C-alpha cells in the first residue's frame, strides 16, 4: 500500500512540474516567429522616398507647406495596408543641451500596436556644401610632376573630334589638383629639353625624375628636331621610340598613351613638311608596330632590335572597367562609360618578354589581352596604355593615373546650425496575432 501511495506522490510532483513548466514556457505568437522586418521596411521606405531627394526637400519646408501633405499621401500609398506609421522629423541642434528639436510629425493611426520597428535617416540641407583637399602626388616621396604634351608643332591621330591641345587642356583641369606641378610641354623643343633631363619651368616643384608624361597626340608621339630626330631616324623612327623607352626607364617616368596603338606615328610639322601618315595627315611619319616594340625594348634596357610585328588584339564585344577602377570612379568622382570598345589591346605576353608587371588594371583582362592597364618594368619606368578604339575619353587616362597613384582626398564639410534633420519612421503592424 505504501508503494502505491509513494507512486501517487511522485505523480503529483511530476504533474506539478509539468504545470509549472507549461506556465513559464510561453511560446511566441506566430507574428513573433516570422515577423516582417519593420525596421528594414522603414529604412527602405525612407530611402525610396528620398531617391529623387523629395524627402530631403520636404523636411526643410515650413510645417504648413503642401509638400508635407504629399509626403503623407506617399507614405500611405507605399506601405502595405496593414502597416501603420508615425514619422517624426527633428532638427539637429548644436551647442545646446537639447540636441534634437521636433519640427513636425505625420501619422495615420492613433496607436502603432504592440510590435513596432523604427529607422532613422539623417538628411543634410542642400545649403550644406562639401569640399575636399586632395593629397598631391609627390608630397610623400619624389616625383609629383605631370608633363602634358601640348606640342603646338605636332599633330594627333585617332583623337578624332578633338585636338591634342583641347585634350591637354581637359587633362590639365582634371589632374592638376592631384600633382605638385603640372607642366604643359608647349612644343617639341621643350619635349627635347625634358628628354635631356632639364626642367622647362620656374616651378620649384618641377622634377624630371618620377614624372608622368601624357601623350595627347593619340597614336602619334611628338618628336623633337635635332639630336632625337637624327639619332632616332633609324628604321622609320622606331629608334626614337626606343630612346623614349630608355628615357622612361632612366627617369622612372610613367608614359601614358591615351588611345589606340601606342607610338604608331611620330609627328613634327617642321620635320616632316612633305610626308604624311598614309592617311593624308602631313607633318607625320609612320612608324607602325615597331614603335611600341622598340619602346618596350628601351624600357626593359634590351639591345635595340627592329621588330615590326603587330602585337595588339582587336577584342570582340565590349571591355569593362575593372572593379578597382569602378571603385575609384566613385572615389574621385569621374564617371566615364564603364564599357568601351578595344581594338588595340596589348597582349599579356609582353609581361614576360619585357619584365613588366601590372599594378593597375583599368579594364578587366579579356583572354590574353589587356585593354587598359599600367605596365611597370621590374627595374624602372612604366607605360599606361589604353588600347581603346577612337575617339578617346580623356577621363579614362585621368582615372587610370589616379587609380595607379591613389592620392587621398581629405574631405571636409562646411556645416551650420539648422542644416540637418533626423527623420524617424516608426512602423506598426495591425491585425492578425
Amino acid at each position, binding site marked *: *500500500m*505504501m*508503494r*502505491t501511495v*509513494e*507512486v*501517487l506522490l*511522485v*505523480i503529483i510532483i*511530476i*504533474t506539478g512540474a*509539468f504545470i509549472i*513548466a*507549461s506556465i513559464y*514556457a510561453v*511560446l*511566441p505568437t506566430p507574428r513573433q*516567429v*516570422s*515577423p*516582417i*522586418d519593420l525596421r*528594414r*521596411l522603414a529604412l*527602405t*521606405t525612407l*530611402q*525610396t*522616398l*528620398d*531617391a*529623387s*531627394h*523629395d*524627402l530631403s526637400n*520636404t523636411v526643410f519646408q515650413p510645417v504648413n507647406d503642401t*509638400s508635407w*501633405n*504629399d*509626403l503623407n*499621401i*506617399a507614405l*500611405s*500609398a*507605399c*506601405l*502595405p*495596408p496593414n*502597416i501603420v506609421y508615425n514619422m517624426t522629423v527633428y532638427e539637429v541642434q548644436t551647442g545646446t543641451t537639447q540636441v534634437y528639436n521636433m519640427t513636425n510629425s505625420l501619422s495615420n493611426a492613433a496607436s502603432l500596436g504592440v510590435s513596432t520597428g523604427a529607422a532613422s535617416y539623417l538628411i543634410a540641407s542642400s545649403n550644406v556644401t562639401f569640399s575636399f583637399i586632395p593629397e598631391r602626388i609627390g608630397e610623400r616621396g619624389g616625383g609629383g610632376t605631370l608633363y602634358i604634351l601640348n606640342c603646338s608643332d605636332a599633330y594627333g591621330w585617332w583623337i578624332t573630334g578633338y585636338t591634342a591641345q583641347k585634350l591637354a587642356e581637359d587633362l590639365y583641369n582634371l589632374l592638376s589638383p592631384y600633382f605638385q606641378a603640372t607642366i604643359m610641354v608647349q612644343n617639341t623643343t621643350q619635349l627635347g629639353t625634358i628628354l635631356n633631363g632639364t626642367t622647362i619651368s620656374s616651378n620649384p616643384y618641377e622634377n624630371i625624375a618620377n614624372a608622368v608624361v601624357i601623350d595627347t597626340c593619340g597614336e602619334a608621339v611628338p618628336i623633337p628636331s635635332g639630336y632625337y630626330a637624327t639619332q632616332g631616324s633609324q628604321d622609320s623612327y622606331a629608334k626614337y621610340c626606343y630612346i623614349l623607352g630608355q628615357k622612361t626607364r632612366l627617369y622612372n617616368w610613367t608614359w601614358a598613351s591615351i588611345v589606340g596603338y601606342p607610338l604608331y606615328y611620330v609627328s613634327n610639322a617642321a620635320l616632316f613638311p612633305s610626308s604624311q601618315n598614309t592617311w593624308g595627315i602631313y607633318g607625320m611619319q609612320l612608324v607602325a608596330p615597331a614603335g611600341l616594340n622598340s619602346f618596350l625594348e628601351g624600357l626593359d634596357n634590351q639591345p635595340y632590335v627592329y621588330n615590326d610585328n603587330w602585337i595588339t588584339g582587336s577584342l570582340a*564585344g*565590349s571591355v*569593362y572597367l575593372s*572593379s578597382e577602377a*569602378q571603385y575609384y570612379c566613385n572615389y574621385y568622382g569621374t564617371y566615364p*562609360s*564603364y*564599357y568601351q570598345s578595344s581594338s588595340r589591346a596589348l597582349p599579356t605576353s609582353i609581361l614576360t618578354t619585357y619584365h613588366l608587371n601590372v599594378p593597375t588594371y583599368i579594364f*578587366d583582362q579579356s583572354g590574353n589581352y589587356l585593354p587598359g592597364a599600367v605596365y611597370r618594368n621590374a627595374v624602372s619606368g612604366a607605360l599606361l596604355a589604353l588600347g581603346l578604339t577612337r575617339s578617346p575619353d580623356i577621363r579614362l587616362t585621368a582615372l587610370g593615373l589616379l587609380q595607379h597613384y591613389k592620392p587621398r582626398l581629405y574631405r571636409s564639410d562646411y556645416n551650420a546650425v539648422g542644416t540637418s534633420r533626423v527623420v524617424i519612421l516608426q512602423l506598426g503592424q495591425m491585425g492578425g496575432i
Partner: protein
Amino acid sequence: MAGSTIDHIVALTVFLAALLLFIALFNQTIQTAVLYQEHRAIASKCTDLLDNILLNPGYPTYWGPSNVTPTSFGLQDPEFTQYRLSPFSLMRLNSLSGTPIYYPKTGLTYSNITMGFGDFLLVPYSEAINYSTVSQLLGTNNTYGFQLNIAPIVTVSISEFQSSNPLILSVNVTGKGFPLASANLSYCFLTVSLQGDGSYPSYTTSYGSTYADEKGMAFLQFASITDNSTSYALIVYAHISGLTGMGYHQRVTSDQQYVMPLIDDFSTGRVLIAHSYDVHYFGPPVAEISYNATFVLLTQDFSLREVPLDNSTGKIGKVNYGNGQPYGVVTIPTGNPGILVITYRKSANEGGIILMPWGVSAMAFEVAFGADMSGKEWVATDIREVTVNNVAYQANLALWSLQGYQVKG
C-alpha cells in the same frame, strides 16, 4: 507477502503509465518549441537572403546588360548604393509568371514577362538566368526554396472612358495601401499614322501633365482622335513626393497580325522583330507587316526623349510569316533604360503599336522569379521598398525549407 507483491505490481504499473504519459506531454511541448525555433530560423534566413540579393550587384558587376552568366548573384544597381536595383539584371531573370514561347526561326524558347497585348518582354532562355543557377549561387540549393517578386508600388491603370470624338481616357493611380491623391501625372500620347512614306507606319507624339483628384483619378481628353479606327498608346508617369510609378494603354486595329520584339543580345542591344503568326501559329493566309521602330528615354522631368535609330540598325522593315521570310532586326543604341516603340501596319486601315521596355523599370514591369510555393508547409516572407531607375518597387521574398516535413532551419 502476497499483499506486498500486489502493492509493488500496482505501484509499478501506475508509475510506468504516469511516466509514459508525462514523457508524451513534455515531448509535445518540446516539439512545439523546437518547431517554433526552426520556423524562426527560416524567417531570419529569409531576411538575410533578401538583403543579400538586394544589396550586392553580383559578379561581374555589370552582368545585367551583358550576356554573361554571373558567378555571384545580386540585383543591386552597380552604379548606386542602398536598395536600388538594376533594371537590366531584373530583365534577365527567368520569369515564373508568363508562359514561355517558342520561336522556330531562331529555335529558341523565350521567357515571357508580357503584361498584356502589345507590352512584351521576351528574353531567350539562353540569355535568361534560371532558378537553379541562382539557387546554387546563393547557396540555397537543396536546402531552401524561394520565390522573389518585384512589383511596382504605384499602379497606374488606364481605360477608355469614351472611345472617340473626343477620346477620353480614365487614369486611376493607387499605391499599395492608398490612392495617390493629387499625384502629378505626366503623359505621352502616341498616335499611329498608317499613311507614312513607303507604306511604313509612323507616329506623332504629344505631351501633357495634370493632377489626380483626391481619389487618385484623372480624365485625359484627346480631341485629335475622332474615330475608333485610330491606333494609339498612352504612357503615364505618376509621381508624388518621391514615389514614382507608371502605366500604359494601347488601342490597335490589328490584334491578330502584329510584330513581336524578341531580345536577342543584351550586350549589343539587338532585338529581333518577329511576325506574330510565326509565334502563335494562326496559320495562313497572312499579310506582310511593315514596322517603324523608335527608342525613347525617360528624362528627369518625366517627358520622353526620342533616341533615333539608324536605318542601318533596322528602324524600318517588313516581316512576314513562314520559311524564307526573315525576321527584322533593330539595335538599341544606348545602355540606358527606355522603351522600344514599334508601330506596325498590316494594311491602310489596320495597324497598331507595340511597346517593349529596355530595363524593366521603363514600363514598370513586374518580375516573378523562383519556384512555386504552393503546398509548402511553412513559408516565411519579408519585404523591402526598393527603387529601380527611380521607379518605386516592393521586393517580396518567400522562403521555405526543402528538408522535410519537420522543416529544419
